[in-house]
């Protein structure tokens, strides 16, 4: 068992375990912390795949940004109202069925067209490639995303504006 495989299994257990905890724990705040762990684990997977750029972005945006905002929302609503919000959704059977179906779908599609275990060595700097393709080949989707973000930003400002 090489170090890479070992790391993969550790990360896999961490990811799956923390993801399960996100949906199973009752305490909403704990769920978010488990989510942070899961997202960090994802970054670890990216790192393992030598996609450092993606790993860093994953940390910066998801673990650092999204989690923060979610936590903020919980703290503001829960502690200030003075009442504990707990996750009461107990539809485990339904959830299990849906997720099993999803797993089956993914696994079967992977099985249908088996991917190579070893991947081709990366040619050149991944970060640079991402940067270049985003600004050349994928310029239009990139710009559209920017417009989307702008729309989101504007709507956020609209909602947060003080009442006149």
């Amino acid at each position: 068992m090489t170090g890479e495989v070992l790391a993969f299994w550790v990360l896999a257990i961490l990811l799956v375990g923390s993801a399960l905890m996100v949906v199973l724990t009752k305490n909403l705040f704990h769920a978010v912390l488990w989510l942070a762990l899961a997202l960090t684990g994802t970054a670890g997977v990216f790192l393992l795949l030598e996609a450092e750029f993606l790993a860093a972005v994953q940390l910066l945006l998801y673990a650092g940004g999204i989690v923060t905002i979610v936590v903020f929302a919980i703290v503001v609503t829960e502690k200030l109202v003075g009442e504990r919000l707990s996750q009461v959704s107990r539809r485990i059977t339904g959830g299990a069925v849906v997720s099993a179906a999803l797993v089956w779908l993914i696994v079967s599609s992977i099985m249908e067209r088996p991917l190579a275990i070893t991947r081709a060595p990366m040619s050149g700097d991944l970060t640079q490639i991402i940067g270049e393709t985003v600004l050349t080949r994928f310029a239009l989707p990139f710009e559209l995303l920017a417009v989307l973000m702008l729309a989101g930003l504007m709507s956020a400002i609209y909602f947060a504006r003080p009442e006149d």
Partner: protein
Amino acid sequence: MLELVTPLIAPIVVLHVVIGIVTYVTLLERKFAARMQSRIGPYRVGYHGVLQPIADAVKLMMKEDVVPTAADKPVYNLAPIVFLVPCMFIFATLPFAPGLGVADLNIGVLFFLAVSSMEIVGLFMAGWGSNNKYALLSAMRAVNQVISYDLPFVFSALIPVVLAGSLKLSDIAAAQSGLWFIFYPVIGQLAFIAFIVSTVAAENRAPFDILEAESELVAGFRVEYSGMKFALIQLGEYAHILGASFLGALLFLGAWSGPGPEWLGPIWFLIKAMLVFLLVTWVRWSFVRIRVDQILALSWKALLPATLLLLLATAVVVVWRANAGL
């Protein structure tokens, strides 16, 4: 010779060196602040107080570890560690000299930013887990501040990246062998100022220390911590400051370049990092704290547009120079 530092030993060495420097940085700050305030500072423990950090550490270790009854225990106990780990990780990509470092990732700057943004999770855990309203208010302020100041910090740190044309920290350092980026006409100085301001804010140092704000929130998110847990939080905070100082020295002050033989490189780097640290300290001990709404206004209305424009201008200059063949 430098290649002999194997990947296994390097992290351990760096960790210990960093912790050692961090403890002594506190002494440096206390002495510096004391001089600013016409006092002497720590003096009794050892010659001119040189053993003071060790005495402090021992004292903190001996202290009773008080855990509030109503605290969310796992979260409360884990918070200092979650806070400390990212702060220590930022040293992972720092090259202390050409080839001397743990891992010189080709996304060095981005890694630094990503890891330091993780610190907020630990901070939040502390604020929430303490089950204290001061801590909670502090955690709420933390979110406001971190969201607001991450962007200017990223933008100002990206200016040297654009100038050097690489995210890799060692490349950025090498690119400054001729001209340190702080001496780059206009852009360099403005970017450095923006970097220092957002560093101070991102590290929650006065005048932006609204998280700690001991005159309003007593000690903010760490109000319930004592003993070793408090020491860990403190260690994390100073490690972050130190990391940011090193980053500043690397991005703007030419990292290890300096007169003398090559082996003096790390020493130069350390001196430059200390200069950045003292600059931050100087700011800290001479300003009054500003209010949370003023802090946000400063970021969103001034710093963010300014750094964004500066980044654009830098890109334009770089492209123009490349086209002109300079």
